[in-house]
């Protein structure tokens, strides 16, 4: 029999559960140097930010009819800002915000 420390455990055959709506073991919000900021009144729901985000960090809130940003996973690539058709999105330096703190012990 072997002693396997908790942090080194690997499931049998390296078969892991599939994520459902997000992969909480790989939080990527701490990759950002800049974040996208939205002025909702300028947004015409062209959906570009939603379709073009590689990290699925923009979603449509159909109740409020507005796009919602996911700070937990946004890596700050700013494709959304670049592809925004109405200049509703702009970039802002991450240190200007108190929120969005992730502070992992290790990068993953």
């Amino acid at each position, binding site marked *: 029999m*072997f002693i*396997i420390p908790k942090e*080194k*455990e690997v499931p*049998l*055959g*390296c*078969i*892991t559960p599939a994520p459902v709506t997000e992969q909480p073991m790989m939080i990527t919000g701490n990759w950002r140097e800049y974040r996208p900021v939205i002025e909702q009144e300028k947004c015409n729901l062209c959906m570009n930010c939603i379709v073009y985000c590689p990290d699925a960090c923009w979603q449509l809130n159909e109740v409020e009819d507005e796009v919602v940003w996911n700070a937990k996973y946004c890596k700050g690539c700013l494709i959304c800002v670049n592809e925004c058709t109405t200049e509703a999105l702009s970039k802002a330096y991450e240190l200007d915000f108190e929120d969005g703190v992730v502070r992992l012990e290790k990068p993953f």
Partner: protein
Amino acid sequence: MAKEMVLSGCAASAQAAKMAKVEVICSYPIRPYTALMMELAKMVANGELDAEFIYGEGEHAQLSVVLGASAAGARVLTGSSGVGVTYAFETYSPIAGGRVPVQMMIADRALDPPGDFGSEHTDAMSCRDQGWLMGWAENPQEAFDNCLINYRVGEDHRVLLPQFVCQDGYFVSHIPGKVLLPDQSQVDEFLPPYTLPHPLDPKHPVSHGPQIRPDQGTIMDLQRAQAHLDAPAVIKEAIADFNRIFGRDYSPFVEEYMTDDAEMAFFIMGAHTMTARHAIKHLRSKGVKIGLVKLRFLRPWPTQEVAEALSKFKAVGVVETSTSYGGAMRGGNLLHEVRASLYDLPQRPLTTSFMAGLGGEMVPLKDFYYMAEILSKMIKEGKTKKTVHWVGFEAEA
């Protein structure tokens, strides 16, 4: 009622796969294993076997196809020989590490150069450390039986390992022998339907094989090591059931022949065991106290059983049909493992190895007499002069 037939090893293996209701088969031609696939192709064409018969574009693809199929929940079979076995080498570790219990029939063939189609165990032996179960058949009957036994053991959720089910090319694969074909009901009683704990199923999504950190690599290795520690108990169970259901008397790991009062023995696996038995019978009639120990599973290696079986002899001659160039014994691989098994015994027999049957060369009775002579000499001199004897090519014994 079981019925008796005369079948080649390839045909016997095909019959076993059919009775195991194999579901996905992947072929690629190479001698001498090819007839296995020819037989299965006929069965599928005739509607006797409901399976997907996939023409792989090479051995690497063969193993890849059955990996995918087995991971998706189908019982699978593939096979190869010689350089085909080594061409697929990349796939062996992922299959074993992913714990996907595919079965591969290997009919041995010498590796190139040049194109020698004779049998030699080096093809399969080169793959022995990847985590697969592995063993050799002596005759078509064992080829048939080992197929079923290996499915049962490999697919057991306590084991979940792929299986190399080996037979000597030509000698076993091509020369027909007597095979008792059991009833389908017997096979069904012995071999439960195939299930995998976490198959690729959209109704129950899982991820197979994400990356790990280097410090977790040991754990993946430990899992395979553990499976090989757990497998022997499952093998014993399977063999006991097999003997009960099919009326056989297999030992799980090592079989002995005329060893009760023997001073010396051959340690051997595969086809040439049969000739060795007859050699022993003749030697016995001349008063030579010799017996034989046959290995049924090379992986997991039955350390204790080998030690117990061999400890009673004064000298053991390991018949090697594979090469390990530059190895510690300067011959094949078997003697390494035999000596390692004996090392902790207070009383160890003298051991040496005999390179015989390489490249598919025959190993006739007289070769075994020669080996017995060397063993007698070792006992007389009380020491091992050489760890390797190239039978038929030695300037001095």
